């Protein structure tokens, strides 16, 4: 656990092929490294279907968004994807302003994101 951020990873799906990374706190320049490590660990385990549960995240910095965008290519190359769920209004505002809806999918609930993987 990094200072200011808490990360838990759960697995869902028929073969537990979907990794759900639950983040609590702020994803800024410092804490984004922890999020990046968590994503790299998941990818290292050949888990290419990833959901970020952001229901307890009040702020995501550029570095945080950069991690999502950076890992997205590799995940999709491996047949997976990165999906964002339960964005808080503050995070959703920035997400829309940055126009990341062109590259990242968002869902109101984690269950909706899980279903979107076709499981």
């Amino acid at each position, binding site marked *: 656990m990094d200072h200011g951020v808490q990360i838990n990873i759960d697995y869902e799906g028929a073969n537990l092929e979907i990794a759900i990374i639950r983040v609590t706190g702020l994803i800024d320049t410092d804490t984004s490294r922890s999020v990046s490590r968590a994503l790299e660990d998941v990818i290292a385990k050949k888990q290419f279907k990833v959901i970020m549960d952001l229901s307890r995240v009040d702020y995501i*910095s*550029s570095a945080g*968004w*950069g991690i999502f965008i*950076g*890992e997205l290519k590799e995940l999709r190359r491996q047949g997976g994807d990165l999906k964002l769920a339960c964005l808080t209004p503050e995070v959703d505002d*920035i997400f829309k*302003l*940055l126009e990341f809806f062109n590259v990242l999918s968002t869902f109101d609930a984690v269950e909706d994101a899980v279903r979107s993987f076709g499981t």
Partner: protein
Amino acid sequence: MGCMTALLSLRFFDKIHIFLLILCVLLISSITTIFLHYIIINKIFADLSYLIKNTLMGRRIGGPAKDDVLMAFEQELTLISEKMDQLEKSALSSHKMTAEMQPLKALSPKTTRPLCAVLEKYSVLQDKVATALDQLKKIIKINRALAIAAEKVNLSAVEMAEDTSATSKTASGGIKSVGHEIRAISELKSTMGSSTQIIQELNEMSRHVSQFITTIAAISRRTELLSLNAGIEAARAGEAGKGFSVVANEIRTLSESSKKATEEIGGMIREIEIRTANAINAMHNTNKLEENIKVVYAVGDTFMHIVNEVKAMDKVVGRIKDITVESSNDSHLMNKLLERLDNVLQECTHMLSGMGNEASEQTTILNTLVIEYENLRKLNMQSAIEAEQQ
């Protein structure tokens, strides 16, 4: 009934006025009656005096004239007696009237004093209303100034709202660009990471190829030695070994060619290894890129803060604008209400002024009546005393 209704509908001062007038009329009629009786008595006394004088000089009058005089004297005495009775009655009536007028005397100050007090209070009230009117006019002036200031603030707030809205749009446009930058640089970072990995793999493959080339070179050298040995053995064999000597020469030629080829490939592989090593070194030397990425992220964060701040400011300015509009409307409304109050107060002032004048007139009338009453009372008293003396 009609008279009663009319009487009831009269004001207090008018009632007192009428009451006092009736009393005055009664007094005047009583005094007139006493005065007439007094004149008659005087005449009777004059006649009596004349008769007594004539009686005393009776020797001048004689016979029937004397009887006539006596008869006339008796008649006069009878008349005097009657008039005396009437005078007594009038005196009694006058006393009664004086007694009846005593409560009026007591009532007069009671009536005038509250009226004077009321008049004083009217005066104070009039002053207070005038002061309130003056203050109200000042408040109206201040409120007008406030309304003008509120309108100016409102205009400024509208301009500020427009500015912040434009700033918000610019910042939103800017943050879109930041989004594209973050996306591009993150993808570049990811791509660079992948490229480094590919080049490292390529380098590994080059090393493997180099090892193969080394092996091939060794084989080639050994083949060359074998071909040399074969040539020597073929020479020893003489004529029988000529064919074998040709094959041995061909093998040596092939091994030399192979050696040259492996040397060329080896040179190329070394070149690839050097270049890939340089590329890997260049890829690993990404500090500048990382710094640039950090700068882009920092710019992005700053933009996000700016946008958030501008949005918050936009909301605050919007609220300020709404408040100033409400304030301006309230100020206009208050101005109208104050103007109405001003009109009402002015009406009150006029009414008070009229009432004060009326009260003053009533007081003057009442005072005059009291004086007249006092004069009448004195006259009546004097008449009564004179009647008693008579």
